[in-house]
């Protein structure tokens, strides 16, 4: 039997996390970094061996797990999950490297790094599972470390944020549990036996059951993605969580929701997906604009980024529910880009906050003079988020919106409008913090007490350590921006084979948007 590389991608951080819990603080940090790096190496090895033209699942593993219930341990990697797995491993390394403040906590550092690695393991499991039951197992396992990380290590209102997060997600995922059980039962007549293996189920869900099952899965994915109006937990969770946790939540975990739509909702319940698409597209557009406007009026820049993240996730959902190949390709591509860009922005926000001692935009100004490197890095990340051609997000958002235009011109136009407030709030953030005059020494914002951090202002530019964390992300932004072809090259066949074939029984020919051959 070949080396089970997909299992290794999940279980290296899982076992490594359990071990980290028992290590003293410095050792825990080094160990966690090494484990995350090993995971990244594994994903890259998998990517190098990945055969790019194939659309089916590669490196597939299959073991019977629970007899009599059709529950198997099945993993597989295709073009849709490939880059998300690499992204999660990369963000795992980045966030653990960026966890210096948490590593200084003498008593809880071991717990912190254990939970971070468990979260990475859960996310990888979600992306790799090809059995619906196994997917659900990892889906729920993600919840535990995320809850504990937000609640234990977060800001002043962490407990409320953690409870809110867990209630929203638990309601969604328990509905999915009912859906998972019902899915097997509904399909068992057509399949011939009770199974929850995704490939076996495709095309076997009777039309009469699709509506209810779609809703059950939709509940979980819509909360996690998040889709407006199920996003209310997110600004609090992202704001209160410590910076590395926020990066992991916004960069990697939020992708699991969108991934669930692509992997399960569309191919398993095509009729229901087609019926629900206009409603979800409407919600996505509302979410894009609403959250952009929310981002405009925030004074806490971490909260601003949280709303911005939701707003941009809306573009991804718009692409998914365009239900055509361009939209889906673009959505997958943009999920990767969004992870890189949002991760970088939250990291930069954390760096600014530790230097300035506050997250209040009104209390800041003129940092560019003192922190030129940080300003430059921030500028690149902000431009990437705006979708500047030549940087990563352009290709993804372009394709996703192109898909939306093809599906319905109104949604395309409305979705494209997102660019205007996106530019506005990011410029407001950038200008408010980096440029302009230094604010008067005694800014007294009404709610400033909540966002003021204990650390005194220190005017120190990025060190080597900070750059080592940020430069890989920036390099990827530029690299993907200039040379995006390798991604859609691998995403397209998987989208065609694993999603489009059941979504539209006769798939339309794909126009080659990227002339790479």
């Amino acid at each position: 039997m070949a080396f089970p590389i997909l299992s290794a991608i999940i279980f290296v951080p899982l076992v490594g996390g359990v071990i980290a819990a028992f290590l003293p603080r410095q050792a825990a940090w080094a160990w966690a970094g090494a484990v995350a790096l090993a995971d990244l190496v594994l994903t890259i090895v998998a990517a190098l061996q990945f055969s790019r033209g194939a659309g089916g699942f590669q490196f597939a593993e299959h073991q019977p797990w629970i007899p009599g219930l059709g529950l198997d341990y099945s993993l597989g990697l295709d073009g849709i999950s490939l880059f998300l797995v690499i992204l999660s491993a990369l963000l795992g390394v980045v966030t653990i490297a960026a966890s210096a403040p948490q590593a200084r906590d003498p008593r809880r550092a071991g717990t912190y790094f254990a939970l971070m690695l468990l979260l990475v393991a859960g996310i990888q499991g979600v992306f790799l599972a090809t059995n619906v039951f196994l997917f659900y197992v990892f889906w729920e396992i993600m919840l535990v470390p995320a809850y504990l990380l937000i609640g234990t290590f977060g800001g002043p209102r962490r407990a409320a944020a953690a409870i809110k997060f867990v209630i929203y997600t638990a309601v969604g995922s328990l509905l999915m549990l009912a859906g998972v059980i019902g899915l097997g039962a509904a399909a068992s007549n057509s399949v011939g036996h009770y199974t929850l293996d995704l490939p076996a189920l495709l095309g076997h869900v009777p039309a009469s059951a699709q509506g209810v099952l779609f809703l059950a899965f939709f509940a979980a994915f819509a909360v996690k993605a998040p889709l407006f109006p199920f996003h209310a937990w997110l600004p609090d969770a992202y704001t209160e969580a410590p910076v590395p946790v926020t990066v992991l939540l916004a960069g990697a975990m939020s992708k699991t929701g969108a991934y669930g739509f692509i992997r399960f909702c569309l191919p398993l319940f095509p009729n229901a997906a087609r019926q629900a698409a206009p409603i979800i597209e409407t919600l996505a557009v509302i979410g894009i604009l609403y959250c952009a406007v929310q981002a405009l009026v925030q004074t806490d820049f971490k909260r601003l980024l949280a709303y911005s993240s939701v707003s941009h996730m809306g573009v991804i959902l718009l692409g998914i529910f365009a239900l055509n190949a361009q939209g889906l390709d673009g959505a997958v591509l943009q999920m990767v880009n969004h992870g890189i860009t949002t991760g970088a922005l939250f990291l930069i926000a954390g760096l600014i906050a530790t230097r300035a001692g506050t997250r209040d935009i009104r209390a800041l100004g003129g940092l560019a003079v003192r922190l030129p490197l940080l300003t430059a890095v921030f500028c690149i990340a902000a431009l990437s988020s705006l979708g500047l051609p030549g940087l990563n997000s352009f290709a993804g958002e372009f394709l996703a919106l192109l898909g939306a235009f093809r599906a319905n011109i109104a949604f395309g136009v409305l979705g494209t409008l997102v660019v205007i407030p996106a530019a506005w709030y990011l410029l407001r953030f950038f200008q408010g913090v980096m440029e302009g005059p230094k604010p008067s020494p005694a800014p007294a914002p009404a709610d400033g007490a909540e966002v003021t951090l204990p650390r005194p202002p220190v005017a120190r530019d990025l060190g080597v350590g900070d750059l080592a964390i940020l430069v890989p992300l920036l390099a990827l932004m530029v690299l993907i921006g200039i040379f995006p072809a390798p991604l859609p090259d691998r995403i397209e066949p998987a989208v065609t084979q694993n999603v489009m074939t059941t979504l539209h029984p006769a798939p339309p020919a794909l126009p080659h948007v990227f002339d790479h051959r």
Partner: protein
Amino acid sequence: MAFTYAISSGDWARITPELALLVAALLVMLVDAVIPARLRGALVLIGLLGVLAALASVVTLYNATGSPGAFGGMVTSDPLALLTTLIILAATGLALLLSPGYIERQGTRQQGEFYALVLLAATGMVLMAAATNLMIVFLGLELLSLPLYVLCAFAPGQQRAQEAGMKYFLLSSFASGFLLYGMALVYGATGATNLGDIRHFVATHALNPATSFGPFLIGGMALLAVGLAFKVSAIPFHAWTPDVYQGAPTPVTALMSVGTKTAAFAALARIFVGALGPVMPQWQGIMIALAVITMLGGNILAATQTNVKRMLAYSSIAHAGYLLIGIAVGTPLGLAALFYYLAAYAVMNLGAFGVVLVLERVAGLGTHLDDYRGLAARRPGLAAVLAVFLFALAGIPGTAGFVAKYTMFYAAVVGGQAELTIIGVIASMIGFYYYLRVIWAMYFVPAPDMPTAEVLAAGTPSVSLAGLNAAVVTKLATTAPPLAVGAVVALALALIGTFALGIIPAPLITLARQAAGLP
């Protein structure tokens, strides 16, 4: 009719688990009378040996050939009896391991009686699970109830425990009366007390109120349902549970919440799904209604509690609701899910009660949610262990609780009762809230300052501290109780069980399917 029946040695072999427990109980009492007081702590070892011997005999019986029935169809050692016996023995063993440190801290002198009564109660539970005759069901029920009446009140000078014992005695005897009356009516209707004969009768006679036996049988079923619903603490027959569970010594609560429930569910499965299976339409509606209100009510009431021990009492009511799905579905798959759930519930619930017990101080202090604040900082190991058990009870994958819930909901969907799955899922959402609230207190809230003697005296008027020196109370209440060896072993076993059943559930699922008569 004249009975001629000779008891063979094979009959005795079929009830070796019961005999092992009984002998251990008698030995404990005998040895207790002769050894010096300072050595009485060692009596628990006799009890544990008895449990181990019973476990060994269960394994032997699993491999035994021939008809499992014994004593003329009075008891059996079929897979159902053996699996439920295993669960009861696990619960008894863990409760015994948890006991010594606890009763020492609570200042109880009569250790010998305590262990002997625990073993006798376990004997009754095993007997009830193995009974294939209504008379033996009742015998087992009484044999488990009588020692528990005493055990509930086994905390000298503590009003709450006295109240628990009295309450349990009164309400439980009332329920026993219902049960016995129900048995009498069923006997009157069918002319048999043997479950196999009852099944034969109801399968071959059309049941309707016009026939002479119809009203008797329906009345008997209703009374049996009430009696057993009381024992599994299903709503609306649950009112005794919170008070008794909170007031009784914690090892007893742990044993009761798992052992009694397992025995009573075994009887429910044998009597309703087994003997009365042919008339399922007559009782299925009642069981579905019981399951629904128990799931929803138990979870909603648990969410309002501020005392962790009491919250776990309501949580055990809620879990009785999930367990009732297995009966209400009435299929072999439902029974298999029921038995798996019972085993999973045993390890995670005993684990949770075990941590509560370790943290509990004299006179029930230290069980309030506020006492758990900042526990993660003070005792990180215990907090982490309790977090695992609570996540398991909430049904997080990777733990026993998730597989249990999944198999149960699966059985409901496949059995054509999808609405029970929906309601179970909704109830589980409420469950999430209160289990995670304890984790919230342990991890997210900083530890309060240690309470002073004045605060203790003023803040807990309901707890009787009469007869205890105020300084002693303060010391006991403010110093962290040490971990006894037995408690460490018990918690470790429960932890291993919780993870093992969640990660490699296949062996136990096989046993559960076997117990339910599935291939």
